[in-house]
């Protein structure tokens, strides 16, 4: 009975949905504030993302002629459900109680769903800007997804497990994968930036070219939910990289009592995800948008090769030193 109750609290309250939504909105604030300060602007107040979210929830939802309403209503919800589920497997206060052998694959799979949803939204919008945006979404996905997956699977290869929790425990005894696999870490950050469609990879929603890409026809609560999906993906992605490359929310020492250990773990979680966000925001500020053909060249020539190199290195290291 207590197990069920703890599980429910974990899913619904902390660190599940309620906390996740608050943290996602806070992350948006942090991102916007960092960006603004780097660009010599003031930036928004802390409640701005929440205010925006509530405002958009209250706005009129405009239905487009000849477009399936159900698809349009359901798509953002499905995307939100997918990324929120993914977050349950990412460690926040110590390892996740739902973790199982192979949850890394599940998280990666769930993180792909918003991208596919975005493509579908663009495709059914019957708007030229949305269609081009949708095609760009799927093109971009084929470019960054392979290196991103490879980069995130290299820690699993070295640790010899497909479970996020076990990868964290492996790092607890030794070094962080950021130091062991610097190439994989960089590729993972680039891949996350591309997945989130932030500059220089904001090609699918390039404002000055195709208005807002697949987002063009989204209004009211659909738009609000899709924005939330974006922020939740940002949190989940940062947490995933923090877990796989930065040692996750666990300390090398055992801390008693247990609640103090959890509190320390949570502090580490905030610090490490914040650090990942800082890097992502810096990339966003320091670059312009590249073209899809340039991304194709860069992605397949350099980023994919780099991730393959990382995999090869890991295999060599595994063969020589790690496995007997």
């Amino acid at each position, binding site marked *: 009975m207590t197990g069920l109750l703890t599980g429910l609290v974990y899913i619904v309250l902390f660190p599940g949905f309620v906390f996740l939504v608050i943290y996602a909105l806070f992350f948006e604030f942090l991102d916007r504030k960092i960006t603004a300060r780097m660009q010599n602007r003031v930036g928004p107040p802390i409640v701005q993302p929440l205010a925006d979210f509530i405002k958009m929830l209250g706005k009129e939802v405009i239905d487009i002629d000849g477009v399936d309403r159900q698809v349009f209503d359901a798509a953002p919800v499905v995307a939100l459900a997918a990324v929120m589920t993914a977050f349950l497997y990412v460690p926040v206060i110590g390892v996740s109680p739902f973790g199982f052998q192979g949850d890394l694959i599940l998280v990666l799979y769930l993180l792909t769903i918003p991208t596919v949803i975005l493509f579908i939204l663009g495709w059914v919008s019957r708007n030229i800007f949305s269609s081009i945006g949708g095609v760009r979404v799927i093109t971009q996905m084929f470019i960054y997804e392979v290196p991103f997956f490879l980069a995130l699977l290299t820690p699993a290869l070295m640790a010899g497990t497909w479970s996020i929790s076990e990868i964290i425990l492996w790092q607890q005894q030794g070094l962080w994968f950021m130091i062991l696999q610097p190439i994989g870490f960089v590729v993972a950050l680039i891949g996350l930036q591309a997945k989130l469609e932030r500059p220089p990879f904001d090609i699918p929603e390039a404002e000055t070219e195709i208005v807002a890409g697949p987002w063009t026809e989204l209004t009211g609560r659909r738009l609000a939910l899709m924005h939330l999906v974006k922020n939740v993906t940002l949190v989940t992605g940062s947490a995933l990289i923090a877990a796989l490359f930065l040692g996750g929310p666990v300390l090398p020492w055992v801390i008693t009592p247990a609640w103090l250990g959890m509190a320390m773990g949570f502090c580490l979680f905030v610090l490490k995800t914040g650090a990942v966000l800082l890097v992502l925001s810096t990339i966003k500020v320091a*670059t*312009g948008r*590249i073209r899809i053909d340039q991304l194709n060249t860069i992605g397949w020539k350099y980023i994919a090769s780099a991730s393959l190199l990382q995999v090869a290195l890991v295999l060599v290291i595994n063969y020589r030193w790690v496995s007997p």
Partner: protein
Amino acid sequence: MPEVTIPIGPHHPALKEPVNFKVIADGERIVRLELDLSYNHRGIEKAAEQRDFIRVLPLLERVCGICSHSHSTAFSKGIEEIMQVMIPPRGQYIRTIIAELERMHSHLLWLGVAAHEIGFNTLFMWTWRDRELVQDTLEEMSGNRVHYGMNEVGGVRCDLSPHQVNAALERLPILEERINQYVNMVHDQQTLLLRFKGVGKLTREEVLKYGAVGPTARASGVDYDVRRDDPYLVYAEVPWEVVTDTNGDVYGRTCVRIGELRESARIVRYCLENLPEGPVRVEVPKIAPKGDVLSRYEAPRGELVHFIRTNGTNKVERVDIRTPTLANWTSVAMCLVNQNLADIPVIVAAIDPCLSCTSRITLLNTPGGIPGAVTFDELRKRGHFYNQGRGPQ
């Protein structure tokens, strides 16, 4: 993907200007481009014929928000030529200072817009921040940020106090430092280079064929600048150089504009330091003798031409304005073909288009398909016909 038609403008985030492109694209490649100007014909040339010389200047200043000083200088220069009046040196220096400050704020604005078109918002924010320094100087000197109203036929409206001169001289070193920073940024910043180099290329021959002017022409190696080749104001006395480039692409145009920023700062500094004493304007007759004049002026965007015809009264009989954007349009339409869809905004922005100034009435569906003139009554009739059944009855 089959060929699709993408409408860009008049409502589009890339161009907040009244223009419409119908871009016919094959996937991401542009096949053809159809231009539709003239959403915003304001009839300024006609209105200018109704006003005397004192009241026509504020009107002409409002042809364009960015190059307001250019239009009023081009016009008053022409009228002064017809009246055969020489304005005093101090007046000429002040006109030059305002003109070059205007060029600086226009180029800084352009750099920001070009960066925004490729999604590089940091540079956009920074240049617009620094542009405020120029705007502050202009406001201090003239009282206004956009429409300075400094020109009068026969000189300038107000003098510069030593305090204003010193304040402007104090801001210049900061500006020069920032400009140097942007020079480095444009040469080093990888995403800028990726998006600017080799995009929207125009050869020297093409520029001459399509009659492009200003930084667009100079970026393709056409060494032509009205300030040097047909000097007016004090450009013949001031040490400065024409900036050219041989790249011929958006990158080249950026380099030219950044070089001009430096040169403008030099000119402003020289003029402020060597400001002669004396009056700033002379009394001019109310009436201009009969005559025609073609007044040329190097506006921030290129060569601006005012054709002025006077008829011995205190009004002009005809003033015809050829804005630099109009001269540059053809080259844009030509160099967009076969480019990438993503490059449209930056190629269009590279000529620094100013569309409201450019709007012309062109009737393409006249009998025989030849653009022609129509009478006012006919125009009215067309308007009535067009509006039938629309709007509140």
